[in-house]
């Protein structure tokens, strides 16, 4: 039965909140920095769902710092729905009671404090998501009422230029604004005319010039000086045993030294194997500085980025055939689209991890840190909705032994999901374990399920210094566990391997050692790296790459 109901309560609420902020808004949509707390107190209500923009790269840190200074009598118990909580202020918010509940994707350096806050009852955790999963929920059941975002430039009409670091902004703003929410932007600079309209002014309610530029973390910068010989060996195995073997052209690389090593030997070892043009042509990838030599030697046709990387702006602008540039000539990143691309259009995900259990589940969670996985799981899984073929995808699918159990003779592809891991980490911490620390974490932080980055059923290859285990070629769990043991080195898991069993798996091509792949271990050293230092990356870039101060050693 049709009920009598008001259908514009959101709109009314929006107007009511905005009227409180009105006195502080001048000259169109401009709010002075010193009035920030006043406008936040005016538009935010108890229990509101609030988004503070930020991920593993850019942060609306000025607005976050202002929110925590708000009157806790007026504003408390907020429900934070946001990509990441990597700054101390994000957790302080829960300590002082401004915020109570959290749904997020990435905790980074604050992982330890998240776990602590959950334990002492200061933080009620909804769930740990992937970026894309969280964005999806913004449009279903976690729509923010107020979003605090950041941009490089803004004008009096509210138009924003987010440029190189557009990242999450479009997803947040669209979800918030089109449900009659309030969008407040901190901008590095108020300008008469923005360089490019990345967010239309109509979608933004207030613009505040922050005293300092927004915080930007160069998370994807890896100093080649710290790449080890073992990482070079593993990179050689990856290129010869996986990239070359499958002809992987479209892919994503995770963060870390393992993939940085791969990027840096493409122009040397990759070239030598004659793989140029046959692999690594299209990426969903942040502008990794370690990609510069491969790009400069003509390996790469296209890169779409989740975010920008500090210092890479000029370089990307000067390589318009590779990166996605706007009509104004500057790059635009977009996390939602790039994650979608990573999920649907890439044939492979390859990245490092901290732990793999004896079944093949892998996680970077430790017993005391709720860190989240950001975007890795979106790419580190088989895209079940994928319907377009590619050689690599089809070949992997054809090798997927147990597929016929479900599909009969129906052909289907499979994404390559590769985890790279040395059997022991620093200080003899084993990479292969009986049980993931994630189980302990789930207990410690009252999580509904252990946080797993990549589940065993998605994982196709494990690559260690001992060899590559082709997991998807295994017939059953028993065989997969034997394959893991066979590459787990001298860890407890590895010591349980029987040499006859491992030998049999090698004969079947389920395990391939460097020798099986025809890789000379003696060549596995840093001299294969196309750039051995950040300085050499700058030289490769013709001075276009401007590395952050902490990476400079000249």
């Amino acid at each position, binding site marked *: 039965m049709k009920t009598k109901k008001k259908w514009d309560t959101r709109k009314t609420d929006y107007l009511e909140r905005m009227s409180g902020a009105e006195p502080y808004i001048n000259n169109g949509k401009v709010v002075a920095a010193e009035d920030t707390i006043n406008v936040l107190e005016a538009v935010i209500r108890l229990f509101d769902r609030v988004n503070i923009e930020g991920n593993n790269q850019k942060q609306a840190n000025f607005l976050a710092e202002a929110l925590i200074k708000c009157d806790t009598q007026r504003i408390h118990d907020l429900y934070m729905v946001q990509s990441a909580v990597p700054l101390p202020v994000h957790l302080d918010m829960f300590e002082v009671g401004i915020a109570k509940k959290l749904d997020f994707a990435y905790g980074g350096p604050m992982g330890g404090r998240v776990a602590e806050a959950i334990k002492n009852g200061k933080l009620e955790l909804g769930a740990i998501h992937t970026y894309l999963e969280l964005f999806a929920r913004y449009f279903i059941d976690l729509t923010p009422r107020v979003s605090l975002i950041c941009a490089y430039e803004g004008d009096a009409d509210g138009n924003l230029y987010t440029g190189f670091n557009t990242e999450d902004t479009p997803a947040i703003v669209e979800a918030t604004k089109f449900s009659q929410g309030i969008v407040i932007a901190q901008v590095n600079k108020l300008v008469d005319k923005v360089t490019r309209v990345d967010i239309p002014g109509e979608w933004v309610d207030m613009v505040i010039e922050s005293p300092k530029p927004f915080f930007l973390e160069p998370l994807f910068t890896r100093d080649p000086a710290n790449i080890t*010989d073992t990482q070079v060996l593993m990179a050689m195995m990856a290129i010869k045993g996986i990239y070359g073997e499958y002809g992987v052209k479209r892919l994503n690389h995770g963060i870390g030294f393992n993939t940085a090593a791969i990027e840096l030997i493409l122009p040397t070892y990759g070239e030598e194997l004659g793989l140029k043009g046959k692999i690594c042509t299209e990426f969903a990838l942040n502008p990794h500085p370690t990609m510069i030599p491969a790009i400069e030697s003509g390996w790469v046709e296209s890169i779409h980025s989740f975010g920008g990387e500090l210092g890479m702006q000029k370089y990307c602008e000067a390589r318009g055939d590779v990166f996605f540039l706007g009509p104004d000539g500057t790059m635009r990143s977009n996390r939602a689209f790039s994650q979608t691309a990573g999920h649907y259009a890439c044939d492979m995900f390859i990245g490092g991890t901290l732990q793999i259990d004896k079944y093949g589940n892998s996680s970077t969670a430790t017993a005391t840190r709720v860190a989240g996985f950001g975007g890795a799981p979106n790419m580190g899984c088989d895209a079940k909705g994928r319907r377009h073929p590619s050689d690599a995808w089809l070949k992997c699918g054809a090798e997927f032994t147990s597929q016929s159990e479900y599909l009969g003779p129906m052909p289907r592809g499979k994404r390559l999901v590769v985890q790279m891991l040395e059997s022991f980490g*620093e200080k*003899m911490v084993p990479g292969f374990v009986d049980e993931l620390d994630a189980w302990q974490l789930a207990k410690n932080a009252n999580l509904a399920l252990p946080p797993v980055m990549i589940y065993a059923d998605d994982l196709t290859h494990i690559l260690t210094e001992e060899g590559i285990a082709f997991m998807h070629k295994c017939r059953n769990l028993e065989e997969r566990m034997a394959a893991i043991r066979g590459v787990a080195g001298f860890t407890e898991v590895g010591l349980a391997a029987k040499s006859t069993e491992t030998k049999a798996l090698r004969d079947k091509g389920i395990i391939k050692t460097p020798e099986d792949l025809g890789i000379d271990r003696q060549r596995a050293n840093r001299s294969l790296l196309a750039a051995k230092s950040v300085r050499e990356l700058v030289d490769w870039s013709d001075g276009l790459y401007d590395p952050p101060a902490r990476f400079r050693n000249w």
Partner: protein
Amino acid sequence: MSKQLHEITFELKAQNPTDFVEDFAHFGVVGSGDMEVIIEQKNLDGAVKVKIVTPVTGYDEVWRRVLERFVNDTGVANASLEINDNNATPVVVSLRLRQALSEVD
């Protein structure tokens, strides 16, 4: 509270031995997570004598297994190996031992 360097010694025999004929070989640097080794020709009735000096305890068995594999893979015999270690992982140990051997090839 006392803290001393830990010493591990044992002897191994390769399955397919080939005598180590160089008088002396040295390789590696005792950086953090790294090690050095001296390999010397010794008449040990085909055996390999190993001595490891390390700040780390609790991995005697892992050391033995890593060295066993090295000795079996390379067939090294009639040699003494002296290792100064500073938290090297088995991966690094295997790598350095092989590099030491190839230095004299």
